């Protein structure tokens, strides 16, 4: 079993924060500090966002964070360089749109990950149909391509998506972009329970999770949560202690 899946399968109440690489007053120089802070607070894994000019799966909070990072000339290549010198016991998961990776060169990208703590990839605009762009390069490596399953994914397709999945299943909790304005659907809990039963791989719930009430709710019906916009906003507003407190509480539900 690959490292990412082993780490997340060990426990319940997994907490996976998302940060935008380079969205720090010191740019990428602040990345290590943020990763250490999130590790010490009790994160199971950490998602590292790569900024992109046209993030169609993201809401305004993460889009703005990406624009701030781009304004500091952050690029995938610089992020990979920074990650080489970062040591952490927590598996890192890169979340990127496909184009920056495609331009970097997929083979080069995977090769560059070997000397980093990156154990997983999330590429929201690379559906199962196109996974052949990446999969052949990571099959023998300790890197997982994490599938996303949405509320609109019918059961028959859910089965196809989880059958040879690795790492964890990213259950998208809303039809919409990251962050959210409206309440979760009533059928969400049932959807998560059903999805979890289809697979032995941990199912983590993400998109729009911003309160401990949300965390408690989803820890009951999945193996944990991914929290992006709230973490990105708090870190941007220098509320590190709030972030630590939130994670410490979240993992105890």
């Amino acid at each position, binding site marked *: 079993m690959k490292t990412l899946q082993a780490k997340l399968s060990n426990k319940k109440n997994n907490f996976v924060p998302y940060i935008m690489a380079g969205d720090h007053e010191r740019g990428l120089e602040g990345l290590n500090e943020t990763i250490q802070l999130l590790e010490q607070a009790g994160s199971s894994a950490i998602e590292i966002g790569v*900024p*992109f*000019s*046209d993030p*169609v*799966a993201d*809401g305004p909070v993460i*889009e703005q964070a990406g624009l701030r990072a*781009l304004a500091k000339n952050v*690029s*995938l*290549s610089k992020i990979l360089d920074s990650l080489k010198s970062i040591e952490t016991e927590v598996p890192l998961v890169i979340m990127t*749109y*496909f*184009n*920056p*990776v*495609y*331009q*970097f060169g997929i083979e080069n990208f995977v090769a560059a990950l070997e000397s980093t703590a990156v154990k997983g990839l999330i590429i*929201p*605009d*690379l*559906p*199962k*149909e*196109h996974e052949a762009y990446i999969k052949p390069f990571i099959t023998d490596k300790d890197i997982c391509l994490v*599938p*996303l*399953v*949405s*509320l*609109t*994914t*019918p059961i028959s*397709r859910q089965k196809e*998506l989880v059958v040879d999945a690795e790492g964890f299943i990213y259950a*998208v909790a809303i*039809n*919409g*972009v990251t962050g959210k304005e409206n309440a979760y659907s009533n059928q969400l809990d049932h959807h998560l329970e059903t999805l979890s039963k289809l697979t032995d791989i941990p199912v983590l719930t993400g998109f729009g999770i911003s309160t401990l009430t949300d965390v408690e709710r989803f820890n009951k019906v999945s193996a944990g949560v991914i929290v992006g916009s709230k973490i990105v906003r708090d870190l941007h507003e220098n509320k590190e202690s709030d972030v630590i407190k939130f994670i410490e509480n979240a993992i105890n539900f």
Partner: protein
Amino acid sequence: MTYNQPNNQGFYGQFGGQFVPETLMTAVKELEVAYEDSKKDPVFQAELKELLKDYVGRENPLYFAKRLTEYAGGAKIYLKREDLNHTGAHKINNALGQVLLAKKMGKNKVIAETGAGQHGVATATAAALFGMECTIYMGEEDVKRQSLNVFRMELLGAKVHSVTDGSRVLKDAVNAALRAWVAQVEDTHYVMGSVLGPHPFPQIVRDYQAIIGQEARAQFLEKENKLPDALVACVGGGSNSMGLFYPFVNDESVEMYGVEAAGLGIDTPHHAATITKGRPGVLHGTLMDVLQDENGQILEAFSISAGLDYPGIGPEHSYFNAVGRAKYVDITDEEALEGFKILSRTEGIIPALESSHAIAYAVKLAKELGSEKTMIVCLSGRGDKDVVQVKERLEAEKEVK
């Protein structure tokens, strides 16, 4: 060999595909099925055909532009008069088809992006005709430079959502429309306006616009008893050009010229010359030529014409370019303005600024080809929407002088 693209995964050679979030996968797959069904559905086809005839006013003329031909001093220039369609451009061909398809799929809301506003107006028109709720996403910059079209859409009962992200033009409107589609995918159809986006959109839009080339081909054969030597059309996303080109794809003697917007010049950062200056990349659900920096960040496009102001080009155009089936050339803002004036004065036809790019190139090409040759230029839209913008620009130039 008979042309047979895309393949069953929506690829045209290396280009195309379905690079969309999982939330949209079910919708694009449903759309594939519904579209294939509609092709075999005689009731659907008859309804669309009747609307194109009685509502849009097809077929529209293939007009021999005698005075323009004399002005250019070379090949005979024929104009395919998409500007005479209801709503003033080719966009209605596709909008009607897709709104009818949405109705067939049981969706009661439509959304669309728009640049110049022509596709927005066409979608709002089709939505009004079928009593559907309609929201149009339009970049704030375009809302300003095409205010008349905004008012038209509102008159037609559509809601116009001004997009304030990014560079506030067409690319950003597509982002906003895609996000909105994700959020309401279950009851909403996204009426993609050009041969762009995830499969099957590039194919659907091509097929609905192919009526341009089908009519033009038959009309030309009737008038000249042969095929034209060249086809010329402007390319932003590339729907009017693909509509003209596609029915000629197996006619190997017919050369195709897609005219990109060179803005202030292709050696400046201010252009929309995607094929000339871009390289393959993924944007808005498809793999196509894209204007981007060395890190894969998408660059802003620039053109006097809002409808050509897009940093990508339909995947089938990228394919045509890669295999050499069509040539892609550039016309600057200045040259397009000249084309705008020339057609107005020689033929009494005021073209859209988008189409003015095709006119300007046609004049150049006609000289090169010589008087033995013939060409069809797609006059994709009329210039009423651009008159105020051109007036202000020409007046400003006068003051400088």
